[in-house]
């Protein structure tokens, strides 16, 4: 629906019977309103978490902007060292201008043409386009300079700080149906029996089960409602009775192996997104700062005393001699649905937050790598010639080095140097960036054939001769055809990324403590596999196997659904994780 809208704003004449999506909703508002009310209710139930997510998003955007903003200055700083401070300033300015210009290329078509007419120049189409980009670049650089070098910047960051602070305050004050406050499972036994501090005085095990069940029920309800939304759109608001996408969806729905994969991936994503809700103890208390947090328990002499998590963890280790196995309480009345780790921390908490780590790394790496692959494949198939050869060489270079060893070396180099990029997620972000760097050539090779084919099509020629800009031609007439392929490879590769992340952490080269990661659990439990504490290394291993199988099944199913005849060479993509 959104492409339809943007088509019309690009100046194409719409036929009369081709009404806009907005108009169609206005004519028959009821189904849309029912659906919107439903989604609003669902979001309202979890409003606290929604705001928490928005806050985290702000954090990520802020970090990315900070990182990008520091690039010109650091380039300038490097130049200062060799050529002097004036050259450094010029280098900073040039880098900033180039970066701003790169931003304007995709943005400028959506800026009204009137902006150029202000200049009062008589320009050709092409000149008009470049003038608009130059103008936008100038505005961007001016704003950036204003923020960086004048007091206006202080006011700007104060404003940003106020907004993020407000969102964070809302996140902590607003309720959520799955929150720990509403259904607490942390409490202590009473001397006369029963529990104090838990939900309705139930045992922590039952309270935790209720909360986790609620999380999954909520997630399933959300998914069902989204599916309903698609159906509402299809029956009430879509112009065509049938589109090829319907067949894709139908093929996917009838593929049971793919549905199995989808179900496991869904479980994994829910586990990652609701990690704070499904973990029986708070990660902050149990893993990150066990020294700073106390809790109460019923000691052996029948008194309710309080202790810190760090002390309690020492006594609840699963290290062969002691074992807190799955589905049991430790001596401090803390419920451990999957037992404890070799350091006495809660395994379920580790598993859910580790899922979060894996998911963030996998999605960032594949998203970024896929983006690079798509952009380069569009450029190299559109311009061919020297662009193509340079891309071939770059990808051959990266592929000539064994991926896992390359990732190890780069990760160690950056972590030894204590580079700022190695800070977020204790090296997780760094790892994701390296994966993107190491994996884009594979994805680019996979979609190279299809994009070369598309670039030979007549409609691309037509678009060129019609006077569409190269960017518009690539975006509207080429990219949609390779999007499906990148989706297939992305989901096949993400399993490889998860395995490799775990393997690197297992070796101690990936993500450093305290950020939870599945590979570290296996490392911690490897000496105890044949003892009573077998669960420490076994449970995360099985989790990895399941998730990887599921992503492979999902990728296969997406491939079959998008194009059953597709001649996709899966050997390369699926085997990448095998080295680990």
């Amino acid at each position, binding site marked *: 629906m959104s492409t339809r809208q943007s088509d019309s704003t690009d100046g194409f004449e719409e036929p009369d019977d081709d009404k806009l999506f907005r108009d169609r909703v206005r004519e028959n508002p009821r189904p849309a309103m029912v659906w919107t009310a439903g989604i609003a209710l669902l979001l309202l139930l979890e409003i606290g978490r929604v705001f928490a997510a928005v806050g985290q998003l702000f954090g990520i955007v802020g970090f990315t902007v900070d990182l990008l903003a520091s690039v010109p200055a650091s380039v300038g700083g490097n130049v200062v060292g060799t050529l002097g401070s004036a050259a450094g300033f010029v280098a900073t300015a040039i880098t900033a201008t180039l970066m701003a210009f790169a931003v304007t290329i995709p943005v400028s078509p959506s800026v009204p043409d009137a902006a150029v007419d202000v200049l009062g120049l008589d320009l050709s189409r092409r000149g008009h386009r470049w003038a608009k980009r130059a103008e936008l670049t100038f505005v961007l650089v001016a704003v950036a300079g204003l923020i960086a070098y004048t007091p206006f910047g202080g006011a700007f960051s104060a404003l940003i700080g106020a907004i993020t602070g407000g969102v964070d305050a809302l996140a902590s004050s607003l309720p959520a149906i799955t929150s720990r406050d509403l259904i607490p499972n942390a409490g202590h036994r009473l001397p006369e029996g029963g529990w104090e501090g838990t939900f309705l005085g139930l045992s922590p095990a039952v309270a935790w089960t209720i909360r986790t069940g609620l999380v999954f029920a909520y997630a399933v309800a959300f998914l069902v409602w989204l599916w309903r939304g698609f159906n509402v759109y299809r029956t009430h608001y879509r112009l065509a009775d049938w589109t090829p996408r319907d067949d894709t969806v139908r093929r996917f729905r009838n593929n049971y192996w793919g549905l199995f994969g989808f179900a496991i991936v869904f479980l994994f994503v829910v586990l990652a997104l609701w990690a704070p809700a499904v973990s029986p103890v708070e990660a902050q208390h149990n893993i990150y700062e066990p020294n700073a947090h106390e809790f109460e328990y019923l000691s052996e002499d029948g008194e309710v005393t309080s202790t810190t998590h760090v002390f309690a963890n020492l006594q609840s280790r699963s290290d062969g001699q002691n074992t807190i196995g799955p589905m049991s309480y430790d001596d401090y009345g803390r419920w451990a649905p999957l037992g404890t780790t070799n350091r006495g921390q809660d395994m379920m908490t580790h598993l859910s937050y580790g899922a979060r780590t894996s998911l963030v790394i996998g999605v960032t790496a594949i998203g970024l790598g896929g983006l690079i692959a798509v952009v380069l494949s569009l450029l190299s198939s559109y311009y061919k010639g020297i662009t193509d050869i340079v891309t*071939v*060489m*770059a990808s*051959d*270079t990266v592929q*000539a*080095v*064994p*991926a*896992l*060893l*390359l990732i*190890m*070396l*780069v990760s*160690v*180099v*950056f972590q*030894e*140097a204590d*580079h700022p990029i190695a800070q977020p997620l204790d090296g997780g972000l760094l790892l994701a960036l390296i994966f993107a760097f190491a994996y884009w050539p594979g994805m680019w090779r996979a979609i190279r054939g299809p994009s*070369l084919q598309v670039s030979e099509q007549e409609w691309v020629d037509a678009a060129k001769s019609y006077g569409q800009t190269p960017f518009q031609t690539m975006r509207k007439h080429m990219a949609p055809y390779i999007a499906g392929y990148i989706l297939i490879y992305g989901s096949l590769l993400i*399993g490889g990324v998860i*395995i490799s992340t*775990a*393997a690197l952490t*297992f*070796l*101690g*080269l990936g993500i450093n403590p305290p950020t939870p990661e599945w*590979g570290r659990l*296996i490392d911690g439990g*490897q000496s105890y*596999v*044949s003892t009573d504490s077998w669960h420490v*290394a*076994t449970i995360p*291993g099985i989790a*990895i*196997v399941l998730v*990887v*199988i599921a992503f*492979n*099944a999902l990728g296969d199913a997406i491939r079959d659904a998008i194009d059953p005849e597709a001649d996709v060479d*899966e*050997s*390369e993509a*699926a*085997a990448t*994780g*095998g*080295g*680990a």
Partner: protein
Amino acid sequence: MSRWEYFVKRLLLTVPVLFSVLTFLFIMLRAGPIDPVAARLGPQAGAADRAQLRERLGLNDPLWEQYVDFITDFLTFNFGQSWVVQAERDILDIAVGAAPATLWLGFWAILLPLFIGIPLGFYAGLNPNTLGDYTASLGGIIWQALPNFWLCVIALAVLRRTRNDGGLFGFDWYTLGPDFAARDISITGTPRLEWISTTDVLMLPVPYINDWTALAIDIKLILPPAIILGSASMAAELRIGRTAMLETVNSKFVETAKAKGLSSRVIVWKHIFRNALIPLLPVITSEAFLLIGGSVIVEQIFNINGLGRIFFQALTQGDLPMAGALLFLFTVIILGLNILQDFLYTVIDPRVGYDQ
């Protein structure tokens, strides 16, 4: 473009690739975020020591001079000496000393999957949609998703458990075949490879095996890590072998052969088997990637002093020049294997050409 022209073009393309790999390594090791002097001496070193080392490493030279030196050194395999791992020993010597163990591991890790994966895949392809097919395919899917490092941990635990007939599986790995318990050797460790010697036949050295027990011991040492290292390739071979078999069985020339009245034995062995092998060739050569990457993990867990383990030690102990040199050696091996693959393809399959 003929296929030989295509091959030559691929051959020429490896030269710039080699140079850009070297440039990348130079950026990472010399011009990257890490200071080589600090990495070697540690933060407590005195200023005099630092200055001396800077001079010795050539870090005071202009960057382009360092770059030229770096590239010429690497291209002539003059890597200098190891810093920490085996201090003051030539890096090339260390690599040559560690190579046999890795080669022995890689040999078995390629051989075992070939003789398990391909027959299983062909069996599944010949009997599609039977119980045997489903079992083999599902096994392949799971086998491929199993992380090597976890398999190593579990396999070692299970094998250790079988000691003194205490196993759940009814065998004792320690006494099975060559008796490890009696000889007091660990089930993990570096194969010694001392069973081979050469004798002169008509002035030419001919290798022969002089100690069959030692050979058996080395094979037994390497079997578990080799199976695990080859696991992903085995699964890939199974999957692709199955597809290739299915496609070949349903092709026209097999129908013709049937119509000619050939026996099914001849059809399977002469017409199907040989053609189904073609798509498996790149899988087999690309195994080298997996083996080199995976050897780090497997060698580390199974205590095999091969190239992978030395690379890992170089990384964790801050011996970055050695890690860079090893990475370069691996890259050269892989580029060589790529050329070999292209060559084999050009020879075996006349249909391959440079078509876009």
